[in-house]
């Protein structure tokens, strides 16, 4: 079984994470679409921290002797997924940024040509 103190600390951390995410959305510093994965991460960690039986069973299932390690592994997994997700977001943004720069250069050129006329 997970030591009670570990469960409490993990649950408190998850709650703080969730509150910070919600406040970031409310103040419009984080868009809903980029917050969903964060919220899922926070909720899963919170559930497994509070529901200690489930964490033990999960640890058993994948052959981890010490249940808090399972929590740690799961958190790392979610961080990896988040990173991968943001890599795809950055790729899309840099693509769009390139297109904007190209269009702007062409637009400025044609505006300049118009003024010379």
């Amino acid at each position, binding site marked *: 079984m997970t030591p009670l103190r570990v469960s409490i600390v993990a649950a408190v951390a998850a709650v703080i994470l969730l509150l910070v995410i*919600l406040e970031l*959305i*409310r103040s419009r510093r984080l*868009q*809903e*679409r980029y*917050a*969903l994965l964060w*919220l899922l991460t926070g909720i899963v960690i919170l559930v497994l921290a509070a529901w200690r039986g489930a964490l033990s069973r999960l640890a058993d299932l994948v052959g981890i002797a010490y249940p808090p390690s399972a929590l740690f592994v799961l958190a790392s997994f979610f961080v990896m997924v988040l990173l991968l997700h943001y890599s795809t977001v950055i790729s899309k943004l840099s*693509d*769009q940024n390139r*297109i*904007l720069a190209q*269009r702007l250069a062409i637009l400025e050129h044609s505006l300049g040509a118009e003024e010379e006329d």
Partner: protein
Amino acid sequence: MAELAQPEVETAEPELARRRRIAIVPAFNEEQTVARVIEEIRAFDPGFAIVVVDDGSTDRTGVVAERCGVQVLRLPFNLGIGGAVQTGYQYALDNGFELAVQVDGDGQHNPKEIARLVEPILDGKVDMVVGTRFAEGGGYRGTKLRRVGIHLFARLVSLMVGQRVTDTTSGFRAVNRKGIRLFATDYPHDYPEVEATVLVSRHRLQMVEVPVVMRIRETGSSSITALSSVYYMVKVLLALFIGLFRRYSTPLEEP
């Protein structure tokens, strides 16, 4: 606006003719239908300025619209319906339009019904009118699942805005200058209609629904596919929930 005594018999049309009015037509890969939508808007009222917002189409939507002689705003890449529609409202704001109507480029909205849509605005009663498929007199032929989802949001939104709303996902809308100013500065992303309805109410603008009949889309597909519908539900629910804790102010009067 001055409360002039208007004779009861007067129809909406002379009142409409007095406004600078624009139809905003968002279109993403609608080369088959966009020309007919433009034609039908003109047939209803040639005095409507028309702006087609080509949301990064990969087909000839932009070219077809330009050939019809309307203003075309081409987005350099796909922004989604929210970003596209907001571009139209920004154009309307910059060019001094007093009345804007949103008509989808896929032909599912019947421009003949713009008359019913703009009437409450011309009467000076409200700031936004939404064409609803569910109020009495309207008609909707959609799948059962879509109808259930739409009704669920309708219940929730009715509760939030304190007024009965039957169709929160309709994109057939008309707004006055106040509404144009609000949407030009603040419009939701992705799937905007549900959130926009709540936004209007939170800014203390008045809203009303009028029944309309929507046509079955001829080509293209709904912006909401089965795969993304779960994301849609969760995202909109989250946005509605967070919206409860935001502060809003009414849009500033014209400078």
